[in-house]
């Protein structure tokens, strides 16, 4: 049986690469903060991931 992470990742097969990139990044962030009941800084990290993925998405769009 594949690992839980692989199983979860496989649930997102076939979605847009940008969205997949974001989902993967956010899940990593959430895992890092999972031990905290009221995590501080998680939204900032998600915002950073969103900014990165959105910038790349716009850039790719301009090139295509």
């Amino acid at each position, binding site marked *: 049986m594949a690992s*839980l992470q692989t*199983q*979860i990742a496989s649930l*997102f097969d076939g979605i847009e690469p940008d969205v997949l990139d*974001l*989902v993967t990044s956010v899940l990593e962030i959430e895992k890092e903060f*999972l*031990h905290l009941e009221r995590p501080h800084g998680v939204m900032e990290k998600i915002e950073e991931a969103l900014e990165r993925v959105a910038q790349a998405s716009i850039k790719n769009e301009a090139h295509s």
Partner: protein
Amino acid sequence: MRIERVDLFNFRQYFGNQRLKFSRHDEQNVTIIHGVNGAGKTSLFLALNWCLYGEGVDNIGQIISKEAVSRAQIGEIVETKVDVTFHHGNKRYTASRKLVGQRQPSGKILEAKTTAEFVLMRVPPSGIMERVDNPIGTMNTILPANVRTYFFFDGEKIDNFARPEQATEVQKAIYQVLDLETLTRAMRHLQKAAQDLRGQLKQISTGELKKLVEEDEQARAKETEMHSRREGLKREHIEIQRHLDEVNKWLRDFESVQELQRLYDQYTRDIEFAQQGLEKAVRAIRDGVSGSYVRFSSPSIDAALAILEEKRQRGEIPSNIREQFIQDLLARQICICGRPFAEHEDAFAHLTQLLKTATPTSLEDDIIETTGRLRGLLEAGNRQSVELNTRMAEQVDWQDRITSLTAQRDDVHRQMRGADEEEIRGLSRQREEFNDDLSTNLVEQGRVEAEIESVRTRIKELERQIENAKKSDKRARLLSRKVELAQKAADKIEEVYGTFAANKRVEIEEKTREIFHSLAWKGDHFQDVRLTEDYQLEVIDRYGLPARPELSAGERQVLSLSFITAMAMVAQREAPLIMDTPFGRLSSAHREAITEQLPTLAPQLVLFVTDEELRDKALENLKPRIGAEYRLRFDANTSCTTIEEMN
């Protein structure tokens, strides 16, 4: 995660350094730690939890070796420390946690501030040991603190999941062990991010750019219209002037007013000349004002010159005697008064001394040049000031002359309008009208010119605003993309979450059933194990009825154990199963069944047991799977425990 060893230092009854190595073998994956009640099994269990997760300890007094404290002098620093070395993925980690305290006169230990340091070191497969930047976060990605309780557990509490009121606990366990919490948190945070970003987007997306572009287009259209109007007025001016010239020409033909007309023409030329003079003066004033920065900086130049002069007087800027001049005198050995002098004379010594204080040529040149330039600037400023005053006086003079000449010409004009000949009076009226038209035309030209200037200023402002709005538009585009991505990601997680959770519940149910049947000795009596949609863990008896209320404590323990191991297997988490006194409440039949299966349920099994709970057939079952075995020896004389490896 597989634990390699634990190193204790002054931890509870473990005085000094003590080490316990765990078996990490695939087949002989069981480590057994034997100890009588109070020997230190729970302390070891606590040491693992405290080191890896910092839990279970409120203060140093709870965990520091009393023997170590008793041996310390008053005021002496005493330390307790636990290191846990483990393997995860293809890396080896060492987690260290320590507390430092100071012995007090009362014999108690006072914890030093900020000593609860947690350090996680990592060794990659072919690398040098490195310190992990985010040890708590990393530990939680390996085995989250909240998930850990399902792998490191107290045997006394093992039956919790099988109690009727524990559906919430079961759901929580599945939620945590299967990473469902990660998914729901991600979904919730992405939705919040999308909502916040929408608010930001709304704030900056007011159609500002569109509005500005429209206004810019309108302003430019107006500028074109004004240009056209100005050209029309200029043409009109020429036409009026032509008519005026014709009228003047006709009037010149009348002998009776020839002299008056000549005067009129002369005044007109003089007025035109004065107007040119006035325009020239105004231009000179405008140019003078725009280039008169030197004039306005004269206070600064004065200040700079004063500073240089002050420094010169203080001797900070050397004298005016040039180095070359003194050297020439010394070479010629003739004083400036013409008297010769020799090297042994006072004059020679004096000049030699002067040479030392003389200004180096380059510095003196620089100072002289700077002073000269500053003075030049000051003079230029003064000249500009004089020039400006002259031009302003000229402007007033030209204006006065125009006023006077116009008055004189109007006087001539009035005389011509009162002429006897009707034709002359008529032409004079026409001339007056043309002059009025000309004046109106010039006023209108001035108004249009001012309007063009105003429109141009607005267009420049609009260009700047459009540039800024374009930047905002870029930001709006980025924000819009972020909203779209955050929402899509949240929606996708929500979409997969339900299916994933339902599938995993079914998988856990199947696995729990399978394990329970392999562990329970009344296999035929219990027909089924169910994990309902509302997360009730239920056992169905041969009559098809819920049997959980009638389960014995041992059977509840078996059901819980089946559920925990099923969860771990479904989650595919490589984590050790560490159980503190797990068999104390089980009958021998249960123990025998469990010990037969338990080693197959986890990659690494660590059992803290008393001799009473693990003996006979149960111990025999485990023997082939035991990779490491220890006995905890408690010395009543020292109240300390030592870890002894068994062969």
